[in-house]
């Protein structure tokens, strides 16, 4: 599986081991961490939800596209779901290649496409006690027909 959704803590070292290859001269990894602020609001925790089956299908498609577009050896991506604390790793991308340029480009391609295409949603919990779904105009607390 080149793309996985997991409810468990991401283990970068274990994921990285699948990238090893005798012909690889470069390894680029990206980690997305939970930060304590967004758009000026203090964030205390994040909650990720996914449609796992479709997310893994679409994520695997993105990794295949990266393998076709860039001169890379292997690529792997994992995204966590559930409730995460500040500093937790939410997403990990790793790419190995013969030369560094392709690995940097492919790693960037994968994370950018994942953020746009894979059915994963993020709810921010704010210090104020409120919460909100990122990127979403549908407000949960809005009165009907407001």
């Amino acid at each position, binding site marked *: 599986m080149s793309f996985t959704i997991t409810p468990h803590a991401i283990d970068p070292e274990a994921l990285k081991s699948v990238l090893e290859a005798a012909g690889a001269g470069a390894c680029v990894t990206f980690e*997305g961490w939970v930060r304590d602020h967004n758009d000026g609001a203090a964030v205390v925790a994040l909650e*990720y*939800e*996914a*449609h796992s*089956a*479709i997310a893994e*299908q*679409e994520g695997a498609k993105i990794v295949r596209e990266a393998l076709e577009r860039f001169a890379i050896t292997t690529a792997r991506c994992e*995204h966590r779901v559930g409730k995460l604390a500040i500093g937790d790793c*939410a*997403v990990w991308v790793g790419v190995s290649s013969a030369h560094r340029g392709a690995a940097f480009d492919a790693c960037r391609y994968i*994370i950018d496409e*994942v*953020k*746009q*295409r*894979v*059915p*994963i*949603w*993020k*709810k921010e919990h704010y210090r104020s006690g409120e919460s909100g*779904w*990122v*990127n*979403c*105009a*549908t*407000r*949960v607390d*809005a009165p*009907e*027909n*407001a």
Partner: protein
Amino acid sequence: MINVTARYFAAFRERAGRDAEALTTSANTPAELYAELARRHGFADSMTRCKVAINDQLAAWDVRLSAGDEVLFFPPVAGG
């Protein structure tokens, strides 16, 4: 009119107050069904920023719905 099941995720689920519902609809496509459900539940997201899946496969908004389809409505994604 056909019978379908609508499933909601993330903000849509919370806004609708349920994760799924059985519907009898005159909608021919997911786009028409989304318009109907957006009015009913107050979904404010433009369809172009959302995604739809039918029977667990991502689908286009303009395909024809069939009786018994399970239609999954995905609000704007925000992975990473």
